[in-house]
């Protein structure tokens, strides 16, 4: 697989490590009343039913940036690559 890095251009997927679903960006509020339930869902439950999947890849052997890669899990086709920091900021995360 070739990941089209927004800053560095096309890079071999071997340079990256894989973390998991991009939903991990949306960390729950630890002060919420149902924080236990929320964190349990956040940590363990997934909806990995195949097809388009947004996931976090880390450019470990490159510029060490986190990317959000949109990839089809049936065909391995990558349709979109974003900087995870941009995605997180757009979702209201401060840092």
């Amino acid at each position, binding site marked *: 697989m070739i990941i089209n890095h927004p800053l560095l251009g096309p890079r071999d997927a071997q340079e990256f490590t894989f*973390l998991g679903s991009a939903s991990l960006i949306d960390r729950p509020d630890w002060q919420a009343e149902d924080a236990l339930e929320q964190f349990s869902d956040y940590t363990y439950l*997934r909806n990995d039913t195949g097809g388009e999947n947004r996931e976090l890849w880390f450019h470990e052997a490159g510029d060490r940036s986190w990317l959000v890669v949109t990839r089809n*899990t*049936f065909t391995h086709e990558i349709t979109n690559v974003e900087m995870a920091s941009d995605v997180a900021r757009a979702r209201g995360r401060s840092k």
Partner: protein
Amino acid sequence: MGYSGFRVIKEALTGHKGWKPAWRDPEPQSAYDYIIIGGGGHGLATAYYLAKEFGKKRIAVLEKGWLGGGNVGRNTTIIRSNYLLDGNEPFYEYSMKLWEGLEQELNYNAMVSQRGILNLIHTDPQRDAFTRRGNAMILNGADAELLSVEQIKKEYPFLNFNDARFPIKGGLAQRRGGTVRHDAVAWGYARAADRLGVDLIQNCEVTGFRIENGVCKGVETSRGYIGANKVASCVAGSSPRVMSHAGIRLPIETTVMQAFVTEGLKPIMPGVITFGAGHFYCSQSDKGGLVFGGDPDGYNSYAQRGNLPTVEDVCESGMALIPALGRARMLRMWGGVMDMSMDGSPIIDKTEIGGLYFNGGWCYGGFKATPASGMCYAHLLATDTPHKYAAAYRFDRFRRGYVIDEKGMGPSPSLH
């Protein structure tokens, strides 16, 4: 009619005209007591034990393709019970005991071969860890034996003992481990279940569940609606897809795992060996091919094929352990998609929907579990209580913090 040596000779002398199909091809009825979704090893075993051990009737197995066409036909055929943790080891040892009696039980030659499995040790801390594991195995009634380098050299003289980075310092052997003819497991259970009246319905894909007031009443399929008192999903590799029809999210992601086989070679590998410094395991099939595999590809995938970096990685591991492997040509490679659970251990449990049961999350270790998985799932379906050896395999262990994380990897499915 049963299979026997006498029968083979008789049929050989009479032109093989007496063989009949091993199972019927029934039309689905309008309703069953038990519907098992998935005609793989685990599903067929569940149906068999449900009929045999619990005396249940009106059982159907629904399979979207053909029997045994999923992961039971796409694995490296290894059986073993060399786990460490309390939630796992008794279950896998139970499975091993069922393997040992399986062929007589099913009247089917599944080529169960207890040729032994050897986990190699490359560092002193690893010897400590494997010694502990061996003790855990013995405490749970399994066999384990710590081997010295000299003992290993007698059995596997061709290994790279003095590798500069990964010298072999010993090994943990389980003599009762080995290999089984994987397809024959599915076929044996299918034939035995069919003879007990189980309807094995192929080309019948489940496309939805009919759920009324929180209770599952039946399944929508590509061959029409079929009602059921109890519906049991048993589709590891497709669990998130099937369960999403019931609106259930799972602690599971789906990953692809590759395996490889070389051309047929003269006998070299007496048992199963695993590399302790990388992730590589290898055995030799009765046809002579070296069957081997390594890590999963490491990202979510439903494609039954992997990517080349993993091929390179597995072959490098193999070459580090068995330099002679470089002279063999790789004949075939294949990928299977697997339920990777959040702690690397399976789930056999009820769901939040009445009458709907779940069996999955086998990661890439489901084959060895086939008999015990079937028995424990049948027990759950028949009695609504977990089998004593599968009592830890519950959905709520994640929320409660009772994960069974054999590798200590945390909730990253692709790392287990």
